[in-house]
């Protein structure tokens, strides 16, 4: 070993360290990476904060909080193009969700012993409700049916259901007036059966009071509901605005000059409004919502918002005010 290389090496280390010391004292490193981490922590804290709000708010609802089992009417052809997007968006907000099809898959889908096709829709519904009644009736107290092109805001459905008794025979949705005297609920807009209503539907088929008399699924189910004395519910909000919708938002909310009912509102049981008063702030559903639109609605509902905005519609305050005037009067 040559003595020169040892001293050279010591010199090398000394030179490096002293210059490093010099540089750090000249340019204080604000530890950019640390400040980014801090911001991330702030963000995570913010997210946790909002999630906590969500949880405490739903706890403010009546103790018997609605447990909703969602079942989606779908088929093998639509899993990739439609149902997948339901699963990734509003499907996650369901307490339980089942995808009803003619074929069992790892999606996962439940196999109903029925072929695909429009003429078999009511058979699918009958089998689906029988299946749910047999295997899942204790998991929920409300049962929502939706199509694979329906968009649902579960929290807003819960808000409506929290005021109702699931032990009563009740049936909710977008009420249509033709064919059935008490009306029936649109299939595409999604409809909800209470626990008791589900029980009565199954009983109706067991006793022959309800039959497969038509292939028009929503109307035929409505007939069975009427036969079994299940009551339709008025699901409009305190301002008379609709919550369930059989078409996308742009079919209702665009301002129109006063005109006779357009074709897509001909069936409505309650007098519909066009323009901003069509729809409640607390929308429950829209229909004919495909892929991109599912995410768009998810973004509008749960993400995009005006910071600090004091919303006009505060139904709880309206109800409180009404209660006060009632007590006073």
């Amino acid at each position, binding site marked *: 070993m040559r003595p*020169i290389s040892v001293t050279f090496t010591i*010199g090398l*280390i000394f030179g490096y360290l002293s*210059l490093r010391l010099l540089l750090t004292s000249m340019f204080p490193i604000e530890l950019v990476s640390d400040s980014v981490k801090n911001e991330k922590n702030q963000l995570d804290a913010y997210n946790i904060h909002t999630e906590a*709000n969500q949880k405490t708010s739903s706890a403010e609802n009546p103790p018997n909080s609605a447990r909703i089992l969602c079942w989606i009417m779908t088929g093998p052809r639509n899993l990739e193009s439609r149902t997948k997007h339901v699963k990734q968006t509003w499907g996650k907000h369901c307490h339980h969700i089942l995808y009803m099809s003619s074929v069992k898959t790892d999606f996962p889908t439940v196999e109903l012993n029925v072929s695909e096709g429009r003429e078999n829709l009511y058979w699918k519904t009958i089998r689906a409700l029988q299946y749910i009644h047999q295997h899942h009736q204790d998991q929920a107290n409300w049962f929502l049916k939706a199509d694979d092109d329906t968009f649902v805001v579960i929290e807003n459905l819960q808000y409506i259901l929290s005021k109702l008794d699931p032990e009563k025979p009740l049936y909710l949705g977008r009420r249509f007036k033709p064919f059935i005297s008490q009306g029936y609920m649109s299939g595409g807009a999604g409809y909800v059966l209470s626990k008791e209503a589900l029980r009565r539907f199954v009983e109706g088929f067991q006793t022959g009071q309800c039959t497969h008399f038509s292939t028009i699924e929503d109307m035929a189910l409505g007939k069975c509901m009427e036969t079994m004395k299940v009551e339709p519910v008025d699901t409009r909000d305190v301002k008379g605005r609709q919550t369930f919708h059989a078409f996308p938002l742009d079919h209702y909310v665009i301002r129109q000059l006063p005109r006779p009912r357009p074709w897509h509102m001909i069936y409505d049981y309650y007098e519909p409004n066009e323009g901003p008063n069509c729809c409640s702030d607390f929308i429950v559903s829209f229909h004919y919502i495909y892929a991109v639109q599912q995410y768009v609605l998810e973004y509008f509902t749960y993400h995009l918002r*005006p910071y*600090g905005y004091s919303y006009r519609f505060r139904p709880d305050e309206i109800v409180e005010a009404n209660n006060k005037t009632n007590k006073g009067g």
Partner: protein
Amino acid sequence: MLSEGGSFMKGMVVGGVFCLVLSLLGSFSPVTESKTDGNDHHHHHVKAASKDELQQLSDSRLQKLTDQLQVYCVVMVQPKSLVYWATALDTWTKHCDKAEFYTSEASKALEAIDLNEKDDWARLRKALKHAYENAGDIRWFFVAQPNTFAIIENLKYLVLTKDPEQPFYLGKAVKSGELEYVELNSGIVLSYEALKRLVNVFQEEEKCPERGRQLWKLSDDKQLAVCLKFTGVFAENGEDVHGKGLFNSKTVDSLISESMKQNPSNVVEGCCADLAITFSGLSANQMQVMMFGVYRLRPYGHDFHDLLTFFPPEGSDND
């Protein structure tokens, strides 16, 4: 002994040079960002204040900031796009503290300030000059076209802690060659100071010609950037605390479609900011739908406990 000392010195020099080279390659980057110093912002992005930063302010200070924060909307319209004009009037512009419509020529259907000017840049100049002269107490200016949808509350949140006596020129910042400019179609934000400097430089024809340079015709938003640059004002990208852009030149549908391809397992989170300020290229019907989607549609029970409060405008039924 001498040769040992010599080799030590050689070692030191080599070590020192090695250290310098390493530091130049970026392991030490002197930070020029300063959070509170408004005088000297060289960085090209402006972020909204974080929740922590806001919480450090007292309630009275926060209230004072909110009350002072007013936005003057400069909406550039033309009679040929009357439907967009009418829709903007009926939707998002109701949330501006002051909204003025500046038109290229008068329309019998709707009122506006008639600039009687066909050239885009000349028209923009006139509009901005008028806005500056009629600002009153308003210190923030937002320039947009009627097929852009803007959420003014989110704009206010972005600039809340920024001093309008400092020059700010914000929006979707894009680079074209050497020039960094803010795209007009996603909305341009100017602080009072920036607008003041701009109006002053309008008088200097060599720097900021009224009819644009003869040889090459720059678009009006690029012209704006050139003129502002002369006054020492630079384009900055408006972002949220995550660094996500808040000004969008596309529609929500378009951005979601893109996100479905790029982030199929996380479409919405990978797309757009929760507190986005603008979307553009919307049809008139889409703007009415957005009005509902932004100001009304929401899930019951989700409270955000925001630190500011903005009230709905009077006499409006769609928000």
